[in-house]
């Protein structure tokens, strides 16, 4: 019963939601809209679960002073401070002068932007050490990458002799080989998603129920 009931439920809901695309009756639509709202509520509830999970995993490690407990305590303090500032601020929390807004503007924004900006340095290092023309495929990739990089910035467009041709060639790379490859990937991924969806609905794939 413990495994059969979720399988039957998955099958019924899955088939019902697929039916929406084939049965354009408003009564049918009312039920699918209701199910969709349940899904949204579950997605919001996942935040609460995430919060509980974070505390459950990290708090014992801070109490026991295990490896990296200092970082975990910073994380927990930040978590509760942000939560308190958010609830304390109410609907005005995003207005200037509120603690939540201050935490966001002066802690989160610089930290998030800094982490992302570091990518520029790692890309530079990777470009130097790893981007090698080892074979024909890598050489083609390298050539295309250099052309696109030059053509994407104004300096490339203003190069003498090549300036007009570069953006045209970049657009050809983007519009022809890029689209061909992307469409192949999209179609392959979509077929894979259909197959996985059917496996879940038909109960062949059971990993979401905790089975192997």
């Amino acid at each position: 019963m413990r495994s059969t009931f979720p399988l039957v439920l998955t099958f019924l809901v899955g088939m019902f939601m697929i039916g929406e695309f084939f049965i354009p009756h408003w009564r049918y639509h009312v039920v699918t809209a209701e199910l969709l709202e349940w899904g949204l509520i579950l997605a919001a509830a996942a935040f609460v679960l995430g919060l509980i999970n974070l505390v459950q995993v990290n708090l014992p490690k801070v109490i026991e002073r295990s490896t990296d407990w200092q970082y975990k305590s910073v994380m927990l303090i930040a978590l509760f401070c942000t939560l308190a500032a958010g609830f304390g601020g109410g609907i005005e929390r995003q207005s200037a002068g509120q603690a939540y807004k201050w935490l966001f503007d002066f802690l989160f924004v610089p930290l998030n932007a800094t982490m992302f900006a570091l990518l520029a340095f790692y890309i530079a290092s990777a470009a130097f050490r790893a981007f090698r023309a080892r074979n024909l495929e890598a050489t083609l990739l390298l050539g295309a990458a250099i052309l696109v990089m030059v053509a994407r910035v104004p300096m490339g467009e203003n190069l003498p002799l090549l300036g007009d041709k570069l953006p045209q060639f970049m657009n050809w790379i983007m519009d022809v080989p890029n689209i061909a490859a992307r469409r192949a990937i999209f179609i392959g991924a979509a077929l894979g998603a259909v197959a996985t969806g059917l496996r879940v609905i038909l109960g062949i794939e059971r990993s979401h129920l905790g089975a192997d």
Partner: protein
Amino acid sequence: MYRFFDRIQHMDRRWIFLGMALAILIPMLFPITFEFKVDERVQALYDSVEEIEPGSTIFLSADFDPASRPELEPFYRANLHHLFRNDVKVVMATLWEFAPPLILPIMEEIAAVHGKEYGTDWAYLGYKPGKELAIKAIGENIPKTFPKDYRETPTTDLPIMRGFKQAKDFAMIVNVSAGFPGTREYVLQIQGQYDLKVASACTAVSGPDYIPFYKAGQLTGLSAGMPGSAQYEKLVFPDGPPEGIRLLATQGINVLNLGHLYVILLILLGNIGYFLTRATDAPSGGKGG
């Protein structure tokens, strides 16, 4: 020559980092500006906004975070100026949890510049978790998905929302997208089903992913990364910005010049070094490569 490249091949990577920092800092301190052309996809985006009848309402999904802000905020700002200047009303929401404190102050600032009133000319419905599910719900029923706006006013009480229930009721959907959930999910979940007009501004890295949607007519226009934002700014403000408005992407794109050049230089140096050292090492390597 061999020794030079051999030393370069094994140099401390902090020198590479320093070079990158200089490649970004120098053009910031001493700007060098180049003229740039407008891409066909950005022009199409601009034209599709121009085609919206004054008094119409569009749905704006602003889905970005501080990390993608330099690429997307300039577009977001220019797009709001463009829409409000053309008397188009804007209903905005977000599916990204880090977006609200970024997008709302900018919306309030630009609405005030154009003398637009909350509730009648623009509205902000807030953040909705659920990712793709939320997009599907926006396609089905907006007041049910967002029962209240960010000021706790029931969505159905907002004058701007009268007669607007589903995504297809809007003249257009503009998605400022930094990734998932974003443009791809809007196209997959609701654009095709409801035959919506969707325009997208995305990060440079997502641009190649969305070009097939543009070519298939599923996107009416596409602006990718900082170059796309700069081109859109150029179209919205052809005579330069009015007083008090800064064209952030137009300033930023010229900083990219040296950065791109530096990466290309590193690729070339790395490859020259690789081939020189490989050619020299191969005979004495014993294994013949």
